[in-house]
């Protein structure tokens, strides 16, 4: 309880004093218990007034102050500063809003406004009486970030952070970094090559001493909170040590008798259990696919660097935060979806991009020369509610238009048919769509109610559509190849999801806290998301979000310590019976169970607590309170306001 409270009532020029009788207010509060002095001031925020308040605090040894003036939004921090400079804890300062909420709101009624102002000031005094000195909490934080996923986005986050002085662990599940980008071939109308892009980034990554790259690595355990996370990382064996020569690699791969579908080419080709890195994948060191390898040992003879005795290693790391950049998987069409898996000339867009890379000057698939290509859009995107993905995958319209342009440029005699649901080449991408139409590509539009039908007659394949652009006319064309334009789905990673507990949306992508205010943060403090694990994005957008995540987390960790708002929840262990209500109510995972003298009680993890107070009303024993909003404070304010 505070005993020496100073009260200052501001005229705000005439803004307050015109509609509120300041003298009456002063008179009414002067005799309140514990009020030591009451003063009025023309402008409380003016420099001279601030100095006066400061010297009052020092000379009169005030233990709390109340300023009745304008909205706290304007000057709360001003007067907190005054208090702090004069050696008073800023949380022993209370601002009472008698301008916006009294003199202005009731400028039609001076008596009423005055009466209200008096009660508001009294409530402020009551609050000040009950106020506690709060210290903003400082915890040491490691300026170290674990970046999960080393595609273009993850590598950009890592480089950005490293350049700003943050230590980075770049953790890639695969044996090679680069993610999806090297698989795409040409990625922009300017001719940028995905493989070259990742090569550049990889070189940047290895050049930086403060980035440590782990491949074949997975997060298996996580504990702690922002500033101080402890992680366990499992490193899968590569079974190759050192840097074998290209010839040795080739020989070993040829020697390997196990053939499996090559993921890099989306199953269009086979690879061996002895995996060679593709163009654009790094490091350019082979790895053995443990799940396929029969341990026959054929490769050991061809390549001396092979070491089949390697085992899983676990390492521990200490980091201040995470940036999750785990990317996407292309949507996998269902068996029979537009003939996929049934007709031999139906493939997906990612497969087609691989096919384009694999063919030199002539486009051939399954031994057949391809001239007419039918692209069917929105496969796995914008589906019916009950059927699957309702969202738009954002990149596909542009990617397909660009693919069509590139295919025609590379193979010449190609006719592209685009069966779409309205082309969404937003922004500058419109120019790609325009280029595709100008080269004579045929765009046909269908609705979800009447999707294109694929029909095989003899050895020819036909696509039939009710074309919206031709007033619903039924049209048909022959197609040599049917390319399903598949959307993006978040990359499956159950282990990670389990460990990090990032909430996902209905679309199964990770959810940010707020799309505009905090677009790269999740409700879990210190766990950030970037790139396509959050929502479909193109490379540019992935890079932007990855670097934005770097900026965000660096600005938090760079000082080496975190300063937490002191408005936090507090548990009274004596009253707590651990019913779990508060921990369920907390959206930030800030309430944990702990034991005090053998009794299970709740504990607030202060570094996670955001001070919303959601936990307080749900407590059946009133054992949890929010600092600054305790029962005593709020109820004494109510008492003051209730005075007749």
């Amino acid at each position, binding site marked *: 309880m505070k005993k020496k409270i100073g009260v200052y009532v501001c005229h705000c020029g005439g803004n307050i004093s015109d509609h509120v009788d300041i003298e009456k207010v002063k008179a009414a509060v002067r005799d309140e218990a514990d009020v030591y002095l009451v003063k009025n001031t023309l402008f409380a925020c003016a420099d001279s007034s601030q100095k006066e308040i400061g010297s009052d605090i020092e000379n009169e040894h005030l233990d709390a102050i109340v300023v009745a003036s304008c909205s706290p939004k304007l000057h709360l921090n001003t007067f907190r500063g005054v208090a702090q400079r004069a050696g008073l804890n800023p949380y022993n300062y209370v601002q009472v809003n008698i301008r916006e909420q009294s003199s202005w709101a009731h400028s039609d009624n001076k008596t009423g406004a005055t009466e209200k102002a008096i009660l508001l000031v009294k409530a402020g005094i009551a609050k000040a009486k009950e106020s506690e000195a709060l210290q903003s909490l400082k915890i040491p934080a490691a300026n170290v970030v674990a970046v999960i996923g080393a595609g273009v986005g993850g590598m950009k986050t890592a480089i950005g952070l490293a350049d700003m002085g943050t230590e980075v662990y770049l953790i890639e599940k695969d044996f090679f970094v680069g993610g999806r980008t090297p698989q795409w071939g040409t990625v922009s109308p300017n001719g940028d090559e995905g493989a070259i892009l990742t090569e550049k980034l990889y070189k940047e990554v290895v050049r930086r001493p403060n980035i440590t790259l782990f491949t074949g690595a997975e997060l298996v355990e996580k504990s702690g909170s922002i500033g101080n996370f402890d992680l366990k990382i499992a490193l899968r064996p590569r079974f190759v040590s050192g840097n074998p020569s290209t010839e040795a690699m080739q020989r070993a791969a040829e020697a390997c008798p196990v053939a499996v579908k090559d993921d890099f080419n989306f199953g269009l080709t086979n690879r061996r259990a002895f995996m060679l890195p593709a163009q654009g994948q790094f490091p350019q060191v082979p790895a053995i696919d443990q799940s396929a390898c029969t341990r026959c040992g054929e490769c050991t003879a061809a390549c001396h660097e092979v070491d089949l005795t390697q085992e899983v290693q676990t390492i521990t790391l200490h980091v201040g935060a995470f940036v999750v950049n785990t990317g996407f998987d292309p949507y996998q069409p269902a068996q029979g979806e537009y003939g996929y898996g049934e007709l031999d000339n139906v493939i997906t867009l990612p497969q087609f991009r691989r096919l384009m890379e694999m063919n030199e000057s002539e486009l051939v698939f399954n031994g057949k020369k391809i001239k007419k290509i039918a692209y069917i859009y929105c496969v796995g995107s914008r589906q019916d509610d009950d059927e699957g993905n309702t969202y738009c995958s954002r990149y596909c319209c542009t990617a397909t238009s660009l693919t069509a342009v590139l295919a025609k440029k590379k193979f010449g005699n190609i*006719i592209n048919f685009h069966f779409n649901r309205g*082309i969404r080449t937003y922004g500058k991408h419109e120019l790609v769509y*325009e280029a595709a*139409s100008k*080269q004579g590509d045929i*765009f046909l539009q269908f609705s979800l109610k009447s999707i294109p039908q694929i029909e095989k007659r003899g050895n020819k394949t036909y696509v*039939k559509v009710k074309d919206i652009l*031709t007033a619903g006319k039924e*049209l048909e064309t022959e197609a040599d190849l049917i390319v399903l334009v598949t959307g993006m789905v978040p990359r499956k990673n159950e282990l990670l999801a389990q460990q990090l507990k990032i909430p996902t949306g209905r679309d199964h992508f990770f959810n940010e806290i707020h799309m505009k205010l905090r677009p790269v943060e999740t409700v879990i403090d210190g766990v950030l998301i970037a790139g396509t694990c959050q929502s479909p994005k193109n490379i540019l957008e992935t890079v932007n979000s990855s670097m934005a995540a770097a900026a965000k987390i660096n600005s938090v960790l760079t000082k080496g310590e975190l300063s937490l708002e002191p408005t936090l929840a507090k548990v009274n262990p004596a009253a707590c019976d651990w019913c779990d209500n508060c921990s369920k109510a907390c959206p930030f995972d800030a309430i944990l169970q702990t034991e005090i003298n053998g009794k299970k009680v709740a504990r607030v993890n202060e570094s996670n607590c955001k001070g919303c107070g959601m936990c307080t009303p749900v407590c059946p024993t009133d054992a949890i309170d929010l600092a600054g909003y305790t029962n005593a404070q709020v109820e004494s304010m109510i008492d003051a306001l209730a005075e007749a």
Partner: protein
Amino acid sequence: MTQIQPELTEDIKKYGAFDFTACYNCGNCTAVCNLTEKNSNFPRMMVRYSMLGLKEEILSSKELWMCYACGECSDTCPREAGPGVLMSNLRRYAIANYEKTGLTRLMFKNNPFFIAITLILAVVLAFFLLTIKPDTEVARWLFRYVPYEVLHSFGMGAFALMGLSAFVGVVVMWRHIGKEKKIAFTGEFFKKAVNAAKKVIGEVATLKRYQNCDSDSSIWSKKAVWLRPWFVHWTIMWGFIGLLVATTLDFIFKDPATTIWWPSRILGTIAGILMVYGSTVALNYRFRKITKTYANTLMADWMFLGFLWLAGITGFWLEIAVAMGADLFINHVVLMIHIIISMELVILFAFSKFAHAFYRPLALFMHNL
């Protein structure tokens, strides 16, 4: 079920429209056009047919002929796909397909061929005319080298040839559009036909729809009526018809090149003035490329307008020469040019842009049925 024929798009492009595949189907062109009606939508649907290569849809569309190429659609097309330009060129495409000898197709698609055939025809005509013995019986000096009788029968032949190929073209067009419109010759047909014919005649006489074309355009609505495209077109058209009638009268009465006060001569003079005025203004617009339509001038347009202009100018030259009795060598040369150009105009009538003169009224007629 209609088959898409993308190969056809390439063929259409050879008739002169290159950019139409840029179209993104917003429909601006159709709606900005003053001449589209509830049951006739162009140009977008024609662009669409062209992109998809739907040949039958193009050949059976009357909409093609309802456009007067004011160019508003091309000027406002957000993708600069030139829908109006495509309309003009699709008309060539249609003419080339209605005309069965294939000559038109060659002339439209192949400029050197077009020039060559024009020149060869001129040489043949000149040779033919010059190798014939001078006619001494006709007193008039003008026909000293080219006998009037020869001209007469030659002209008849040219007319017959033109008439025959025009007739074939008309029948082909009728069959295409008729199939689409399902026209049957029932009792009611004739009543409708009379009405339709009235409408067509009215339209041809006044170019009322064409006038609508210009009245809303941002460029033309600010210009005087006599400078607007519809009027220019009207002068050329009526100038030509007038001259055709005058020449026919001359044929019938076998007394050409007499006094200018002869009624058919008066008609010829007025018509000539109209035609020369019209073709001069039109050539001027095309030289200055004042709208996208005029900017897109093809060989056939230059030839056609140029011939009309030359025919008119040489006609007046001769008229003056006759009036002055100037029996000079140069005037004989001019007569030769005049005859050759007029003959070429008539002979190529059914094989050139000129053919729209009978296809368009027919399409309008069928539209009104």
